[in-house]
């Protein structure tokens, strides 16, 4: 039977590839036969991820996404891409009364501006092949109203809007742009946020299918990158184990 999720012969960039979801996605993508370029800040952890990948020809791109000059250098060294997964992101719970410009800047710089800028650079340099699939990892928070998530949710909401516009602009080159909006997935990023375990356990109880794993989201990433989704663009797929159904 044909493997509809095969990524054989493709070259895929994964940002935020040194940990959490990005690290798992990179392994799954390589497992489908693609060459993967891994982008993140920490070279040592990137190398560790690379060592976990099946196949040959994977690249490590050490780059701080929030530094425009480093982004420019990274874009310069990139080989043409058939897929991009924007996975780098941070999260911090900040009640509105404690929002500060500095916190807004940090969240939006990492979760939104840097991804847009990198995409712009890659497109300008014609490093995104015709027919490429671009996948943003958004969040179901962007569609909900969870207390304390103002900055995170709105940075992801910006992605949801960008996806539709980019899809419209890039369709002429047969490029597709979509987002996945996962619910809570246990990753290092989540452990690093200031959410307490009690709140976390309460949240888990609100997921009819339980909390997700990075692999659950990874399967959707594979679908979005593969030819199986060639007629899908401009969409934000909610993937949350039923969390948002009764809200």
């Amino acid at each position, binding site marked *: 039977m044909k493997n509809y999720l095969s990524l054989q012969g493709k070259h895929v960039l994964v940002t935020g590839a040194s940990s959490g979801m990005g690290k798992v996605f990179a392994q799954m993508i390589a497992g489908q036969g693609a060459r993967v370029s891994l982008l993140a800040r920490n070279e040592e952890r990137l190398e560790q991820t690379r060592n976990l990948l099946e196949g040959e020809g994977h690249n490590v791109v050490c780059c701080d996404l929030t530094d425009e000059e480093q982004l420019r250098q990274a874009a310069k060294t990139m080989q043409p891409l058939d897929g991009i997964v924007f996975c780098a992101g941070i999260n911090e*719970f*900040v*009640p509105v*009364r*404690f929002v500060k410009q500095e916190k807004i800047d940090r969240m939006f710089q990492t979760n939104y501006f840097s991804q847009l800028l990198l995409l712009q650079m890659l497109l300008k340099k014609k490093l995104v092949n015709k027919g490429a699939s671009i996948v943003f990892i958004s969040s179901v928070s962007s569609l909900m109203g969870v*207390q*304390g998530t103002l900055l995170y949710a709105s940075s992801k909401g910006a992605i949801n809007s960008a996806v539709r516009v980019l899809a419209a602009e890039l369709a002429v080159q047969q490029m597709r742009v979509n987002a996945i909006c996962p619910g809570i997935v246990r990753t290092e990023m989540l452990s690093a946020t*200031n*959410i*307490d*375990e*009690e*709140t976390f356990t*309460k949240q888990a109880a609100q997921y009819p299918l339980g909390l997700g794993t990075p692999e659950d989201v990874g399967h959707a990433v594979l679908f979005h990158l593969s030819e199986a989704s060639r007629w899908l663009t401009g969409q934000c797929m909610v993937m949350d184990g039923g969390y948002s159904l009764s809200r």
Partner: protein
Amino acid sequence: MDIKEFIENFASNLNDTDVSELAPETAFRELDEWTSMMALATMAMVSEEYDVELSPEDMRNANTIEDLFNTTMKLKG
């Protein structure tokens, strides 16, 4: 930094509880309006007013306002 000022800062996150109802030995989780959001707001208040970061564990280990004050003092060194 004294505990009176800390209690005033703590109270600034509350809507239904007057500062006069609070004392160092107040078990803050027993306040009617206490929610997990208040825990986040308290951490944010400490970060803003005292320039140190309380961890979720610090919050969990504290029972009274004085516990929070003491942890904050310790973090400030």
